[in-house]
């Protein structure tokens, strides 16, 4: 049974159709990323999930039970939404974080402890007395996150939480989102237009286009989904597990029995990207300095102006780009057996 299920949700703002029979299922403990371009309806979807917007039509199920008008008041006690536009009350950091706890009627001692703990998690210890409006954008967004965190919600919604933030703040925020999900089991839905963010934080991913959820899958399979190409050209993006020894290279298991070597040092879950033009294709195994040599078969050929794009299955599908001339001279075709060669330094961490 799903924790939350949206069935055929329609939301109209006057003539504008923001959600067009959108369906979404969220399991308990999930960390679901909703990916889509601006204007796809992600914010509206989140606002409906958060109970601050009512759908024009459609059904919402909580733990299998159909919810009616009572959904808003019901879910607001269990859930919170971190807005895309950074929004803090004109008050101290402490009062901002304590607000939600006060509305839930927590005793003062409990509020203090939770505020302190939330500030510690977002790396803002000692900021209690500061005026929230006078903080930087990144710090304000961390206050927003701490405010959500302190509530210990069972369901957390984040709308583009790292849009327009610097990489350091982004990584703190992504870390906190993972922490909430892993350590506290908070069911989380993150809306983002950043494909790579999906890879770095989510367990499952949904693609939203024109007010509809068009694809949902575990994140490992998500990047291979053909519908994704309608939104972003995602070639050679792989999700994998990285490990390295003290003086050895970083080895990344990207599944399908394929391991690739990279020049950066990272451990754990990583998303990597190799540009199609950085891969050399050969008929025979050639000796070179390149650290990655993969053997596979051509599964797809597409002609694009002066270049030919080939899809090669080496256990995972890689896209390679060669000139038309090379393509002809090498006498390649679907089914041809080839080697893919690429330098460790061409494997980019995203």
């Amino acid at each position: 049974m799903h924790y939350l299920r949206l069935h055929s949700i329609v939301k109209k703002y006057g003539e504008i159709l923001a959600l067009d029979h959108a369906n979404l299922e969220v399991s308990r403990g999930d960390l679901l990323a909703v990916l889509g371009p601006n204007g796809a309806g992600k914010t509206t979807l989140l606002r409906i999930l958060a109970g601050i917007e009512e759908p024009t039509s459609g059904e919402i199920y909580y733990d299998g039970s159909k919810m009616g008008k009572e959904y808003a008041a019901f879910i607001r006690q269990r859930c919170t939404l971190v807005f895309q536009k950074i929004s803090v009350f004109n008050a101290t950091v402490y009062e901002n974080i304590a607000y939600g706890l006060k509305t839930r009627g927590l005793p003062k001692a409990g509020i203090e402890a939770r505020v302190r703990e939330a500030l510690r998690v977002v790396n803002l210890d000692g900021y209690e007395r500061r005026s929230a409006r006078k903080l930087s954008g990144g710090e304000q967004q961390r206050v927003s996150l701490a405010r959500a965190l302190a509530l210990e919600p069972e369901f957390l919604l984040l709308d583009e939480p790292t849009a327009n933030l610097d990489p350091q703040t982004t990584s703190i925020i992504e870390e906190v989102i993972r922490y909430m999900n892993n350590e506290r089991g908070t069911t989380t839905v993150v809306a983002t237009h950043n494909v790579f963010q999906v890879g770095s934080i989510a367990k499952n991913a949904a693609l939203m286009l024109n007010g509809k959820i068009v694809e949902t899958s575990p994140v490992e399979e998500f990047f291979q989904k053909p519908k994704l190409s309608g939104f972003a050209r995602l070639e050679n993006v792989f999700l994998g597990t990285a490990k390295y020894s003290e003086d050895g290279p970083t080895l990344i298991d990207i599944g399908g029995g394929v391991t690739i070597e990279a020049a950066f040092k990272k451990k754990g879950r990583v998303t990597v990207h190799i540009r199609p033009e950085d891969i050399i294709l050969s008929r025979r195994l050639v000796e070179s300095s390149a650290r990655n040599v993969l053997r596979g078969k051509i599964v797809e050929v597409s002609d694009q102006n002066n270049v030919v794009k080939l899809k090669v299955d080496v256990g995972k599908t890689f896209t390679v780009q060669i000139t038309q001339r090379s393509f002809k001279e090498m006498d390649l075709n679907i089914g041809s057996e080839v080697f893919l060669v690429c330098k460790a330094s061409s494997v980019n961490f995203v």
Partner: protein
Amino acid sequence: MVSEIIEGLRRAIGLIVSGDPAVLDATVRSLYISGAVTLFAVSWSLPLGMIIGSRSFLGKNLVKGFFNSMIGVPTVGLGLILYLLFSKSGPLGVLQLLYTPLAIVIGESVLVTPIMISFIVSAVENVDPEIKDLARTLGATESQANLAVLKEALPSVVLAVVAGFNRAIAELGIALMVGGNISGLTRVLTTSIALETTRGNFELAIALTMILSLIVFILSFITNALKRA
């Protein structure tokens, strides 16, 4: 003339320092009438201003335009209408309100309402619309969410209330026309100043003007200090 003013100022300070009964009487009455006006006007202007400022409805601009234009209503005109309403043969004549402090309170409350509503509406409109949603997502009920908006708008709302009070205490036309400037009953600072000036009692008029100006000045000073804090 200059020496008269200086002499007037000197004697005016003497009247204030010695606690002259006429000065004290007009000052206290002005304060409590304006205080009552402010309380009355806030009691309906605040909820109305909140509603107009935070909701969108058909004819909203018309309503806002109405209150904005009412700010400039000629007070003698308003005084005349109220006089006709309160006079013995008027529709509210049975209440016998004419020439009572309550008549001044009612008249000035009507006068300051558009000022307060207009200021409060713009204060609420200037609050980020996401504040209400923010409060809601943190578990607030609708009334708690409205309170959060009010809190954000508070410095400007205080300003609106003070502007209302200042307008009431400085008002002459209505106080004169429906109050009648009766000594010991409806005589306030402004009506006293007008009377004493026509009588040629400049030192008393100056003393009263100094007090009136001082009240307005102190209030503005406190409001500004609060706004900065």
